[in-house]
């Protein structure tokens, strides 16, 4: 799933999809933590997942705010539209 999220990140030009792909990647890492925690029978993995959840929410909040802003500015969600700086 992590790899799938990665593919999504690399393939998509639409910022919305990229954000979704990032969510998938974070979720996959969370899954890894929960299963690792389960392996050791510890609560730590789940605690970490909880924080990942929080972080995911925060990132999405800022990410979507930025997305709205970009859309108003460029009238497109194409990330390549905003590639003025290079070289």
């Amino acid at each position: 799933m992590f790899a799938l999220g990665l593919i999504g990140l690399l393939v998509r030009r639409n910022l919305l999809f990229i954000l979704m792909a990032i969510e998938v990647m974070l979720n996959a890492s969370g899954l890894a933590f929960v299963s690792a925690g389960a392996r050791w029978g510890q609560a730590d993995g789940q605690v970490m997942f909880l924080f990942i959840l929080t972080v995911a929410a925060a990132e999405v909040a800022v990410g979507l705010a930025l997305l709205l802003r970009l859309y108003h500015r460029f009238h497109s969600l194409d990330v390549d539209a905003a590639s003025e700086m290079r070289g």
Partner: protein
Amino acid sequence: MSSADFTALLPLIVLSATSVVVMMAIAFHRNHRLTVFLSFAGLALSFWALWPAASVVPLQVTPLLVIDRFSLYYFGLIFAATAAIVLMSYGYLERHDVRREEFYILVLVAALGCCVLVAADHFISFFLGLEILSVTLYALSAYLTEREIALEAGMKYLVLAAASAAFLLFGMALVYASTGTMSFPQIANDLLSGGAAHIWVLAGVAFMVTGFGFKLAVVPFHLWTPDVYQGAPAPVTALIASISKGAMFAVLLRFFYQSGARDLHSTLLIFAIIAISSMLVGNLLALFQSNVKRILAYSSIAHLGYLLVAFEAGGKMGAAAGTFYLTAYVITTLGAFGVITALSSSGRDAEDIEDYRGLFWRRPIIATIFTAMLFSLAGIPLTAGFLGKFYTVAAGANSSLWSMIFVLVVASVIGVFYYLRVVVAIFATENVPSDAERPLPAVHAVGGFTLCALAVVLIWLGVFPHPVLDAIHRAMSGLF
């Protein structure tokens, strides 16, 4: 938590309280000057709180944070750097027609994130610190929302930082899965006992390198640097370049030293590759660049490469050399971006090399400060940068890293070329634009004062480094 715990955490508590106080103050009365004053006072108070904290260290505060001399040294660096950024931002934001006050909340929270990173010896606090820093930096990079390139910078930073954080997390999960612990020293125990799942740790560390490498902006994770440096407002760039990288380097030292992951062959190999390619690629990219912010971005890639040489050298000497280099680098970067901040007008940042043509004849003081900063970056004697490089080379030589030293020297020679290009532009006497052609904004007194102070500290460190070196050597007790 005991009272000693609270004393040890006092600097962090004061800092967090400051951000809340600033927010409250904004809620009741929006005033730029008041906000700056409160932020600065809070940072000063946090700095003061280092002394009570120093009396109880080293202390493990909950499994998440460890407050020792190493942490306190970096706290001090972060507080001072943040205070400088806050003061420099005042004049800059005054010229911009945006909501100004939230900027300071974000800066304070970012500083908190850096402090958490520095004190983290557990994956949870490491991750949280990193994310506190990242999330605020997304917003800060795009702070001037009316600028397209700022939005672009924010977007690029967001996507890549989130992706690299996912890699980091995945690596942490692998390490956790194999060792069953998330605390750095306990990972070391597991590694020492040679657990069956040794290889998992290696794979996890390799993934984590991506997370480290992104924030440190080293090859091959460096591509975002110039764009974000260019797009973000100059004070934010200063923040990204100085304390964000500094805190990341601190946690790099702490993680790899305390978890014992530094002693793995493949780790050393990976970092050697990163260091060598960063030094070369960064300097080569900067060669004919005409945008000063991008030049500094590329040079920062190279500087992080030099820092990794100190990391590779290892031992107390390597860590101390790295810390000193970093201190010098933070001061220098703040100064350089401070000059850009001070000379930026409301429309655009002063980032083109042409903006600096003949600056010496128009603004001698600020031009001299900028020259001093560039000399320090180039590693010219009597500046802090020279001593940093000297100690790094000495540490490298001590560990017989001859190939890396060779690359370092070659890269430094290339580096001198582009720093001198800027210096030549500053002292150029021909085609100096007049005030009418290219008006220079008046330097705000607060920012100007900060710049002078930075220049003084730079020279002071370059000439009389001993107090700081002693502090660093004491700080190293936290790692060993």
